[in-house]
């Protein structure tokens, strides 16, 4: 073990170690980066403790819902259109299969026109929104409140659309889908209503990517970088070990070569202590029994054979 340490401390391997440690550190940095990315979805969101601001002060028509704005508490004033409501099934909220009810709130603009703000009015258990045929039935969702009302909720960015809206059911709360279904103009994000109303449960607070808080893809990348980092250290250890074992085999071969010409039944005790003194080149040829020792293919008869080329196979090349 100590001899292996001596091999490891040779300048060549110390230099290699420095290189490998540098590579490992780089991998560590990359792992941290991915780790941060995985958590960014949660940490970059603002705390929803501020008092709610009016919609016109929080988001103008046509403005994007940036990460900074997402999760801001907002109060919007307008009227719901009973014809413009969709259901978004397939969510998990509070450990339950949930269906989100999304309706269009018509908000009067400063110029007198109207714009639609999608409002996730709340969620209901999937069982309550499922008809006898096992399909989600939009008719089972509670109707929108009539007249001009105030809605309090959290401003959220539109989700990415994958499928369309069919029969008032969609898989995402995505403004690109809703604008086709309901018409323009429309705000770029949606409001997740936090005040319970009409028999619906309030939408979960802020970190509302519902149950997908951590990005597992980035967690996976972080783990891969840790593995790569470890691999460099392993590579270094393998090189040290290889050099050490080579050296030991070398010394053994030299020792065997030096023992043989000295006397037939080798006395290992006293001679073993002087492996460095016995240079194979100086000890001369004249070995009698090549099969007695030497598991290595190096021919013990030939002390010049230190290049590692087997004379047998070299001739048949």
């Amino acid at each position, binding site marked *: 073990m100590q001899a292996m340490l001596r091999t490891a401390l040779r300048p060549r391997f110390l230099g290699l170690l420095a290189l490998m440690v540098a590579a490992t550190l780089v991998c560590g940095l990359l792992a941290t980066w991915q780790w941060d990315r995985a958590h960014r979805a949660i940490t970059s969101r603002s705390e929803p403790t501020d008092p709610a601001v009016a919609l016109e002060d929080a988001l103008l028509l046509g403005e994007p819902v940036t990460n900074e704005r997402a999760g801001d508490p907002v109060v919007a004033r307008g009227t719901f259109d009973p014809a413009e409501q969709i259901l978004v099934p397939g969510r998990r909220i509070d450990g339950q299969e949930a269906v989100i009810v999304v309706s269009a709130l018509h908000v009067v603009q400063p110029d007198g026109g109207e714009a639609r703000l999608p409002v996730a009015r709340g969620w209901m258990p999937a069982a309550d929104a499922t008809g006898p045929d096992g399909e989600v039935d939009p008719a089972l969702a509670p109707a929108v409140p009539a007249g001009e009302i105030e809605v309090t909720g959290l401003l959220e960015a539109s989700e990415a659309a994958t499928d369309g809206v069919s029969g008032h059911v969609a898989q995402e709360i995505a403004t690109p889908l809703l604008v086709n279904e309901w018409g323009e103009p429309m705000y770029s994000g949606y409001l997740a209503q936090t005040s319970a109303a009409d028999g619906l449960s309030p939408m979960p607070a802020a970190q509302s990517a519902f149950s997908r808080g951590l990005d597992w893809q980035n967690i996976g990348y972080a783990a891969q970088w840790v593995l790569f980092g470890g691999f460099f250290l392993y590579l270094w250890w393998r090189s040290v070990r290889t050099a050490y074992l080579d050296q030991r085999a070398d010394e053994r071969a030299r020792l065997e070569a030096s023992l043989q010409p000295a006397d037939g039944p080798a006395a290992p005790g006293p001679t073993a202590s002087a492996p460095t003194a016995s240079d194979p080149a100086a000890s001369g040829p004249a070995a009698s029994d090549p099969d007695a020792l030497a598991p290595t*293919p190096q021919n013990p008869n030939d002390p010049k054979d230190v290049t*590692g080329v*087997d004379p047998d*196979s070299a001739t048949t090349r």
Partner: protein
Amino acid sequence: MSTPTPRPLDEVAIRASFARYRFASFAEGIALLVLVSIMVMRYGVYHGEGLFTSTSHTWETISQTWSPIHGVIYMVYVVLSFDLWMRMRWSLPRMLLLMLFGVVPVLSFFGERWTHQKMESDLRQRPTLQDEEHPRR
């Protein structure tokens, strides 16, 4: 201290390692061709307006499923080529070359043949543990 003589190669272990490498090489070659075909479908046949956009939801899903599977196959390929590379005691550039074989479509099939030839010639020319059993080859 001078560099010590390398120990003889273990031909039996090397041939077993090469068999594993060859299997991974074929698997990676095929997996990569599948990935390329999926990419052609996703971004070529069903291309969207911008570069690298797609209009086909189906092919996007297929691509998102296959990509990580191909990633794992490539990782296995790299680990098994590393094993062979270490046993053959080849130089560092050759490890990078082996890794490259798995990245370029179709190249892995030629790379596997090339690696096989290099392995055979090295086993013929360099001392192995099995030389005593078969002194003449």
